[in-house]
């Protein structure tokens, strides 16, 4: 529907009818301090009876409000429809820190999980940043990123801005003073998710499966532990976010079920990149990119043998966790703790 159609609708249709169909419009009126309108009337008539002084403080008049309202309706019907669907991302190699050339090109397709490994300072985060901004030879690495096998033109670049990539890193925290439930409702609201209630329940359930210690819907997000926050962020990215590309930068020390997290993300038709030093995460991926001195120096497909090691690695991991838990509780450690025999 075009902006003109919405304009016609805003002129003719009583507000409560528009609100019933587009609940988001309530925000439009709240933003302009217009909460006491006669909702049985169409907009212009309703505005006749409102405080003109307050409207003028916003630098608006009735006609401008009408126009803005139709633009608002149009913009948010677009938000509801959009989901930047993509099939593949291609990295066209640039050069390393000393100018040495890297791989010519390499493509990741939807559904793939790719880990990125390499020493600290080698350029893992840089690669994630190149993907995030759809580099076009304009970053220190000279890389270029193509989407669906093609160069991204200016128009597409703008269309995809902010929708293509969801990011998760160690430094990210929740800053909103909301409960988990309110937080998820707010996110679902901004996504204009259709079956919000179901999506929220599903996301909450997934988050609790990933988190070591359980949390409740009425826990404040700011009070979640590091592990619980990461778990909620991952579940939220998997269940709520529509971004087809997920970039995760070193979240290892978080105390979450990492293999489960990977499985959850893998189900969701996304391309997931994870920069990591953690063997469990690195080997749970389908492929891993090895970064050396700023270059992608090798691409390794996770072999059957490596996959078979995962169970053993998980046992090691559980042993370390057990040791940590005992130490934290002020207990002593023995060979039996190591073997898990107490």
């Amino acid at each position, binding site marked *: 529907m075009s902006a003109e159609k919405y304009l016609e609708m805003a002129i003719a249709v009583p507000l409560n009818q528009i609100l019933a169909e587009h609940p988001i419009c309530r*925000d439009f009126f709240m933003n302009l301090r217009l909460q006491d309108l006669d909702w049985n009337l169409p907009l212009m008539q309703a505005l006749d009876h409102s405080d003109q002084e307050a409207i003028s403080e916003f630098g608006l008049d009735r006609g401008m409000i009408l126009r803005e309202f139709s633009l608002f309706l149009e913009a948010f019907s677009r938000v509801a429809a959009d989901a930047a669907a993509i099939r593949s991302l291609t990295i066209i190699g640039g050069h390393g820190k000393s100018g040495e050339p890297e791989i010519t090109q390499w493509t990741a397709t939807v559904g793939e999980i790719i880990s990125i490994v390499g020493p600290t300072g080698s350029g893992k985060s840089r690669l994630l940043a190149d993907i995030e*901004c759809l580099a076009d030879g304009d970053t220190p690495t000279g890389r270029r990123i193509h989407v669906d096998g093609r160069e991204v033109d200016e128009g597409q670049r703008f269309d995809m801005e902010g929708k293509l990539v969801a990011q998760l890193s160690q430094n990210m925290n929740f800053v909103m003073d909301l409960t988990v439930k309110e937080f998820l409702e707010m996110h679902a609201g901004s996504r204009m998710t259709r079956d919000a209630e179901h999506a929220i329940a599903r996301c909450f359930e997934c988050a609790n499966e990933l988190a070591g210690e359980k949390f409740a819907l009425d826990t404040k997000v700011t009070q979640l532990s590091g592990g619980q926050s990461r778990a909620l962020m991952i579940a939220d990215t998997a269940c709520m976010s529509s971004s087809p590309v997920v970039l995760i930068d070193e979240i290892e020390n978080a105390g979450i079920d990492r293999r489960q997290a990977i499985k959850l993300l893998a189900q969701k038709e996304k391309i997931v990149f994870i920069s990591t030093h953690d063997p469990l995460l690195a080997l749970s991926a389908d492929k891993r990119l090895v970064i050396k001195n700023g270059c992608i120096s090798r691409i390794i497909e996770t072999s059957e043998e490596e996959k078979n090691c995962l169970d053993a690695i998980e046992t090691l991991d559980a042993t370390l966790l057990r040791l940590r838990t005992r130490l934290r509780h002020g207990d002593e450690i023995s060979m039996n703790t190591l073997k898990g025999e107490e």
Partner: protein
Amino acid sequence: MKLITFAGPPSSGKTSVILKLIEAMAIDVSQIGVVKFDCLTSFDNLRYEEKGVRVETGFSGKLCPDHFFVSNIEAAVEWGLKSGFQTLISESAGLCNRCSPYVQGILAVCVIDNLSGVNTPRKIGPMLKMADIVVVTKGDIVSQAEREVFAFNIRQVNTAARIIFVNGITGQGASLLARHLQGARDISSLRDMKLRFTTPAAVCSYCTGEMRIGAEYQMGTMKRMEFKTG
């Protein structure tokens, strides 16, 4: 010369973003000048000078910062032209949410940060509403969901703006911003151009130095709150 106006709440990241932008523009710093409009003090000039960027700072002091902006921006443009800049950037600290130091036809950028609270975009007013480009900073420290809700709330008050995420520390996103700013129009004067929004209409006795409290001292444009009783 191109003129670009930047505004935004204090500490939202304006200076950081402008500095990263200048790096991303990949032109000689001698081609760029900055005018900083502030209220009482500012140390931004040191940060610009450190990068070799020419900067002039003005303090509005007792005046409304917006009135101060309009009465000085024309001279700032003359300074920029005389200095042979290719681009002149103005940085204004938005101090009241009623401010919007933007001129019609001149590219206007509003910088706000994710830490300011998700509902802040809905409260900022003309400074956000009238901007062509909204730069969102500090996305590196909040969750993806909060970034999305924040952008959604910006969209609510300014459906037409381009929203660009920039990290003021690493400069991530700055080259995209630079690309959007290339379209800024070339000007040779601001004479007869108009502001996008009226500056706060405040000529009351307090504007002119009155300090005493009480109805008998109040003259000019006044607005009184209503308090409900019972």
